[in-house]
């Protein structure tokens, strides 16, 4: 068996983290992306820039600030402590929080593009057919934006799997709790265990390639607005 039990635990943890993060991001990202696609508010630019920030910031910056903000002296940490939850640094919940922020643009932007591409007309049509805005969102917008949801889910999942810097900064490298695949690979390399590193790293390359292949192949057929 080329992969040790530690490696398998890291893989399982990574998949759990990525799945949960993706689900949360789709739930949070959908209204956010919809708002960004629809609003004429001046805040649009500010919010759009904030959402895109993780694209340009090194993960270490995000990790560093999360460490401060989620920590016992940070305002979020103070709040979680006041609620009796303790702090979430060094926990799976903390990794989920970090991953949600880190992968946010990878989910919000495809959704926003998908929503924008729908344009105002289908919404107007639905309104003249007696659909309330919420009704229209579920019966027209969501089905039409389906390719955007697929892209967002794939990118959010894959990007979370590939996350390293943030986890490194706030994870604490706890086996089964915060030691994800990318950190495990780093450990192997640091410890000069190149063989194990190769197995895991190779698996990551194969996984990422397959994900992107699925993504780029599915872009072939696009729905045409009739």
């Amino acid at each position, binding site marked *: 068996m080329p992969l040790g039990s530690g490696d398998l635990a890291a893989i399982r943890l990574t998949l759990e983290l990525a799945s949960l993060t993706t689900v949360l991001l789709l739930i949070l990202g959908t209204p956010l992306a919809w708002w960004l696609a629809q609003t004429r508010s001046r805040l649009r630019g500010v919010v759009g820039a904030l959402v895109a920030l993780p694209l340009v910031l090194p993960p270490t910056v995000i990790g560093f600030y999360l*460490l*401060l903000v*989620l*920590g*016992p*002296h940070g305002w979020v940490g103070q709040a979680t402590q006041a609620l009796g939850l*303790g*702090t979430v*640094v*060094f926990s799976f919940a903390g990794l989920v929080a970090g991953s949600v922020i880190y992968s946010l643009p990878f989910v919000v932007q495809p959704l926003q593009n998908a929503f924008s591409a729908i344009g105002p007309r289908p919404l107007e049509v639905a309104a003249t057919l007696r659909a309330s805005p919420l009704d229209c969102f579920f019966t027209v917008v969501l089905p039409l934006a389906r390719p955007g949801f697929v892209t967002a889910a794939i990118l959010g999942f894959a990007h979370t799997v590939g996350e390293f810097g943030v986890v*490194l*900064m*706030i*994870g*604490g*490298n*706890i086996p089964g709790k915060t030691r994800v695949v990318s*950190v495990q690979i*780093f*450990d192997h*390399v*640091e*410890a*000069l265990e190149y063989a194990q590193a190769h197995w895991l790293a190779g698996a990551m390359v194969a996984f990422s390639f397959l994900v992107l292949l699925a993504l780029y192949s599915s872009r072939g057929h696009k729905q045409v607005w009739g």
Partner: protein
Amino acid sequence: MTAFTPRLAALALLTLAFGAQADEVQVAVASNFTAPIQAIAESFEKDTGHKLVAAYGATGQFYTQIKNGAPFEVFLAADDTTPAKLEQEGDIMPGSRFTYAVGTLALWSAKPGYVDAKGDVLKGNDYQHLSIANPKAAPYGLAATQALDKLGLTEQVKGKIVEGQNISQAYQFVSTGNAELGFVALSQIYKDGKVTSGSAWIVPANLYAPIKQDAVLLNKGKDNAAAKALVAYLKGPKAAAIIKSFGYEL
């Protein structure tokens, strides 16, 4: 980190671009030795007229970079095994390896008065996280696990341990309050003969194998007078005084 580090980094880049000059020495320095080498550099440059250009990083990464042709001339590692490996593999001037500092392990908390003089706080149960450096990759991490073993606390603290990838991160977890306690390098919390913040217990040397930090003159530096001068300077009394003032043994 002091204000002139970005300038040094820029200099290092420039030097990489234009090729090393005779009176300049390119040094790879383990992160934990950042503050001491800056103090040493100042004194070294004043005394010899040579220029010291330092890059800071993890010892394992420096190893990989040196094996792949990085232009370092002197290497101050955080351990003794990596320089030994380089020696075996013929990447250094034969016989140039020496211990320039011996690290001291400290149990530290950012809270004043939290750590007692005997380190008994470790045995208690009122802390949630104990930060250590990754024992697989960082010598201080290994030393921390050895000390816990000797104290018979390994099982007891198992669920509390959080690992930083290096000793800087282990320090960061404690300094931000995310971990109440942590094993750090004394050099990180020590200046001019005393602990600078929080509370600490200096772990007795008999609880862990000595953290020897070895330096080597790399093949790239064998014809560089500045590189040789630096190696000699590190063995001299001025450097020794500086190194000790930062909490290292010799």
